[in-house]
């Protein structure tokens, strides 16, 4: 059984030999690549803490076998900021108190990034809430999370309008 894969993770190509076909993308990121920003909450696809972008789309990395994603382009929370410059979503989560304990935050931010890329939520609070329902926050920071995502979505919309004006 050939268990070698190559992934691009946060822009860096990684050639990897898996020790076992059971390794999930989540465990590969955390245990092999030591990218521990992606969190293991439920490990069953229910909490969203493990959300990453694969080929630009948000998925639960706990329900993805690494072997099945050979060749994929993966973006994790570690690849979101530019050096010391926070991504606008990260800054907005701070500005709006979009977290308390912070455990779900990497998943929330990756999910929000996916949501904005999907382009379905506009700046409608109800569509944002619906689009973020796959990410649980046990601290209950939902109103701050919604405000942070809305702020970034609105600034993107404004920028797009200026560009087309």
């Amino acid at each position, binding site marked *: 059984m050939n268990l070698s894969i190559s992934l691009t993770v946060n822009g860096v190509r990684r050639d990897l030999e898996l020790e076992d*076909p059971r390794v999930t993308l989540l465990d590969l990121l955390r245990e092999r690549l030591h990218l521990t920003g992606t969190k293991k909450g439920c490990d069953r696809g229910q909490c969203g803490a493990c959300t990453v972008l694969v080929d630009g789309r948000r998925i639960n990395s706990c*329900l993805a076998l690494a072997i*099945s994603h050979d060749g994929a382009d993966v973006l994790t929370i570690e690849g979101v900021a530019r050096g010391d410059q926070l991504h606008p979503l990260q800054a907005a989560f701070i500005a709006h108190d979009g977290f308390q304990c912070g455990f779900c935050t990497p998943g929330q931010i990756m*999910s929000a990034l*996916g949501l904005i890329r999907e382009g379905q939520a506009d700046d409608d609070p109800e*569509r944002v809430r619906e689009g973020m329902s796959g990410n649980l926050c046990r601290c209950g920071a939902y109103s701050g999370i919604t405000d942070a995502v809305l702020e970034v979505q609105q600034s993107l919309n404004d920028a797009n309008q200026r560009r087309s004006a």
Partner: protein
Amino acid sequence: MKTFDYIRPASIAEAVAAATEPGAAYLAGGTNLLDLMKGGITRPSRLVDVSRLPGLDRIEHLPDGGIRIGAQVRNADLAHDPDFARYHPAIAEALLSGASAQLRNAATVGGNLLQRTRCGYFYDVASACNKREPGAGCDARDGENRLHAVLGWSEACIATHPSDFCVPLVALDAVVEIEGRTGWREVAVEALHCLPGDTPARESALEPGDLIVALRLPGEARAFSAHQRYLKVRERTSYAFAIVSAAAALRIEQGTIRDARLALGGVAAKPWRARAAEDILQGARPGPDAYRRAAEAALAGAKPSGDNQFKIELAQRILVRALTLAAAGTPARVAALPASPFSTLPGALIDA
């Protein structure tokens, strides 16, 4: 999780040959299968990864107005395909009302059709379950069963089928295309899932090695585009399985219902087509009286399998609501909370 051989076939023929072996399972999006494997509920010895098989990720428009959807098309891609959503808005809405955005990005059309029940006793390997272990008994019969089946159940099994997607598919006469050891064949989605009877472990018409390669909607389904809805009651407004759900599609001409297509979800081990109710609506004037009579006919054979008598009335009310909304006309854009009869905005009564 039990370990397994991992095989990535290069063709459908290779996939079918590899999956015919006892203990083999197909892997597509993995959102249900990996969860089941982590819990020890299913223990395949071989995974045949069909997620990259060529040619299964297309949405094709057929000369007769039908649509053929490759089995590997992701749930989110289908729901957001503009032509698909225009012709089959209730199906798009059903897709968007299921699971979370992350899961919809990974889950495939074929996998959604074959997802397993969410019965808690099926998931709990310490409980007796005839579906998981034939002959073991059914702990749901005398357990927490308020969400279980009210139609088509047996003493052996009272589990429900969890798919939202399948409910409007059954209503609109969708068909699956299957490749197997004996070649190609097609099966109506309505005939794909089995009622439990004495053999609840047998859940579908598929044989070992059978691979769903495509889903087809007939051209006639487009006649219902202007008047269709999918509505779903759940215990939270998003990211939850249906307690009950209903798909209603109408063809209305000059103030009269010429044709109706109805199905219910969350009530049985399969998506439940309500033909007797359709017959009542055919030729009727749209309105609460006809809807209520249709709903009563749809649930005429229902009986509680436990603490779930309420689901029989709830299913009738949600069917009436779905018919009312369908008759009012398909909205231009899918609701902010797909399929929900509620809104999360304070003061807003209904967003559907």
